[in-house]
């Protein structure tokens, strides 16, 4: 995802000199190409996220389009009030980019795992939130950030996410994508964990459980229409995110469903009111925290069975 983002940023900077890359001392070499090709559009703010965010707002007030990039916890948590007051409240054209979504920093521990950022960003008015699932989608989301006149937050993993799209596709901000059709349940997910949802859905096919898999690449505005349709058509909804279940995608979907008079079998998967446990690869982290493909399949199976049982009563 990181390379795809940098590729998009490189493209954008070449087209418009007002596109600026602001970073907070991230990565020894990852910005080398950008720095070499656009030295006048590259600013390392050092380890000072609050200043970087508010300074980005000041730049935007003068017509610049700054992409302020750092590890998401340092961005969305350390600098939260600066995002609120300087970027969102003043509707400045700042593009916030957070890396390390979910467990993507694997062994680095909970200080580096972005597991509350969606909740924090979702509550802020005027902010569009993209949470792409793959490198290809990251590229398109970064371009969409630049096209949107106003504040955006782009939630990224790191460097090892799999590609889920075999060919080009239309990325429409605010519109979810059905990656796999199904009729017994819907897994509605965000971010690269969608791969695990696809794997779980494939395994469940062998048990004659037909699972729809939906990619929500835009957290805000949320595709309420698609979510309600999935609930009505499949009867069970399982939300999935590498994030706390409180306030994140699951919370957003719960709000949407209830406000639309929709009450399907409903399960939120993510960190259940806890910080993540353990140290390991990203796959191991998911397993240790109840978010492996097997865990997902089990939750879907239970939801479908509970749903059909309820239907018989």
């Amino acid at each position, binding site marked *: 995802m990181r390379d795809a983002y940098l590729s998009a940023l490189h493209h954008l900077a070449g087209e418009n000199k007002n596109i600026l890359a602001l970073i907070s001392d991230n990565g020894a070499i990852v910005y080398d190409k950008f720095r070499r090709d656009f030295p*006048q559009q590259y*600013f390392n*703010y*050092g380890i*000072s996220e*609050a*200043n970087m*965010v*508010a*300074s*980005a*707002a*000041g*730049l*935007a*007030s*003068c*017509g*610049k389009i*700054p992409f302020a990039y750092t590890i998401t916890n340092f961005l969305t948590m350390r600098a939260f*009030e*600066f995002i609120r*007051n*300087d970027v969102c*409240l*003043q509707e400045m054209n700042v593009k916030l980019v957070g890396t390390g979504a979910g467990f993507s920093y694997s062994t680095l521990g909970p200080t580096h795992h972005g597991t509350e950022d969606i909740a924090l960003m979702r509550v802020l008015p005027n902010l569009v939130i993209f949470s792409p699932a793959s490198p290809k989608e990251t590229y398109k989301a970064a371009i969409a950030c630049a096209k949107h006149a106003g504040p955006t937050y782009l939630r990224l993993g790191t460097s090892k996410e799999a590609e889920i799209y075999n060919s080009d596709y239309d990325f429409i901000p605010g519109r979810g994508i059905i990656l796999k059709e199904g009729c017994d349940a819907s897994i509605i997910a965000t971010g690269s964990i969608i791969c695990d949802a696809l794997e779980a859905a494939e395994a469940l096919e062998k048990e004659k459980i037909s699972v729809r898999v939906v990619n929500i690449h835009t957290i805000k505005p949320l595709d309420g229409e698609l979510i309600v349709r999935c609930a009505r058509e499949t009867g069970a909804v399982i939300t999935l995110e590498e994030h706390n279940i409180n306030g994140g995608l699951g919370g957003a979907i719960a709000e949407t469903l209830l406000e639309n008079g929709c009450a399907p079998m409903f399960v939120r998967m993510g960190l259940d009111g806890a910080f993540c446990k353990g140290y390991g690869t990203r796959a191991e982290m998911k397993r240790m925290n109840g978010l492996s493909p097997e865990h997902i399949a089990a939750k879907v199976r239970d939801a479908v069975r509970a749903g059909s049982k309820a239907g018989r009563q």
Partner: protein
Amino acid sequence: MTGLENLKNIAAKIRKELFITVYNGGGGHIGGALSSVEIMTALYFGGVLKYDPRNPEDAERDRFILSKGHSSTLLYTTLANAGFISAQTLATYGKPDTRLGGHPKIGDIPGVEATTGALGHGLCFATGIALAAKLDGKNYGTYVLLGDGECQEGSVWEAALFAAQRRLGRLTAIVDYNKLQAMDKLCNIIGLESLAGKWKAFGWDVIETNGHDIAQILNALGGREENHDDAPPRAIIAHTVKGKGISFMENEPLWHYRLPNKEELKIVKTELNISDEELI
């Protein structure tokens, strides 16, 4: 009348109108607003800031950011005297449907360059404005007025480091150093001495001045006509008196945010030459 006498008269007028605004509006952070009156007078009427109230969005204008946003009433009074808003608009402060908030918000009225109120934001925001000027080869200046208590915020020093590193020579930070904060003297809470030494150590050119002597303030704000683009940013430490101009408010933490009672009001009216008709 000399130019300086004229400026003193303007400062006296702003101080009086500031009090009337706060009093008629039902409240405001009066103490810190009073301590910055001469600084604002020098900036807006002493030939420092380039601005045109008929064209407040002019790309070439100097930018002023009130980082100590709780002194909003002083900003509004100054903007009214500078022609950005009318006296009638100023009189709406504290009334229903006013556009003049307890802290300034961008877009509400012309002349407000940033939304402030939470301390420690204005200088950070200003580093972006000053950096944009440098990138675009513009020669406008960026001026920020900070409170001294505000300098207890870590983000102020993040911005200070960045501005010095980037040699944002057209950025000027003015610290209203009245040595009081909301609850007590700074030295009894988190002292800042040596404040000038701290800014120097962070890489800024530092000038200390009497913040109520307009000639001194103007002197501090002048003299940088050349080599702006490869100069350190500039900090002006303005030694002031919180509550300046109203005897019983001076140097009293109590008057950070408060309205006078009847007896106190009599003193204010005498000291600022306010008539009964001007108060409601």
